[in-house]
């Protein structure tokens, strides 16, 4: 009991620490938020210092799915498929208010929030969110990743 759980909790922390600083993101960029995503990833705001700088454009190689920009009903099956193709552990960030709730596109073409299709871990509202908001969301995601217990 005692000693065993001490070691596994330390191991949990170590794995959490390693995971949160080596985020391989899949930027599922569709719309205007992509511009702010580019701004966050580039030199001025620099997401690379969080270890999240390397986008991996294959769902098999990525662990965080950044859904950036409006998802229309035509695109929704594609998003679901990409999410299903990712391997565990995986997290989803809803970047921009169109992915959180549909934004101001309350019409026949737009999905009213991607959490109707896939589970979301962090919501970053904004239209588009400033890079500071994005970094704040990323740090919250890192806290969530670090805090996840592993199953042995």
């Amino acid at each position: 009991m005692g000693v065993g759980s001490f070691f596994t909790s330390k191991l949990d922390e170590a794995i959490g620490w390693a995971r949160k600083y080596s985020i391989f993101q899949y930027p599922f960029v569709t719309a205007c938020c992509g511009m702010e995503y580019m701004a966050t990833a580039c030199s001025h705001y620099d997401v690379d210092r969080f270890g999240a700088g390397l986008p991996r454009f294959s769902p098999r190689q990525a662990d965080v799915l950044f859904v950036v920009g409006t998802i229309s009903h035509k695109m929704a099956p594609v998003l679901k498929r990409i999410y299903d193709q990712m391997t565990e552990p995986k997290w989803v960030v809803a970047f921009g208010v169109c992915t959180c709730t549909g934004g101001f596109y309350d019409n026949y073409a737009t999905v009213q929030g991607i959490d109707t299709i896939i589970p979301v871990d962090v919501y970053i509202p904004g239209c588009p969110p400033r890079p500071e908001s994005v970094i704040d969301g990323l740090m919250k995601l890192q806290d969530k990743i670090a805090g996840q217990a592993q199953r042995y």
Partner: protein
Amino acid sequence: MPILAELQRRFGDAIVETHEQHGDVTAVVARDALLTVLAHCRDDAALAFDVLMDLTAVDYLKFPGREDGPRFEVVYHLYSIARNHRLRLKVRLDEDDARVPSAVALWPIANWLEREVWDMFGVRFEGHPDPRRLLMYEEFVGHPLRKDYPINRRQPLIGPAS
């Protein structure tokens, strides 16, 4: 306006109506003469409308004063690079006879523009080589830009409908 005068002189009754509003020159053409008029606009040396800038449609179902008239108007915006002048041509269509000959043979861009009008309004273009929807998915039922299509009617492929 010389363009309108020239069209009326040449095509007579096929030009149903003309007006010039805010500097835009507009002519309403009868459907049967449409391709002839378009071809003349493109090939005539004085008109030389080599660019089909835009091809769209307007649904006049809820327009005050025109609710009973022809429902659709297909609008062609033409531009001439050599002469630097513009022309707007319109064709009026009834709701139960929403067919227009396709202009694909004259300008290749008409292919996609007509697909979009079919997608959004349900106007058929006869002779179009590839009459598929352009913006919506094939499973979508209805034509969203029509005035009687409610903006909130969702038809999701996956996920909930509301």
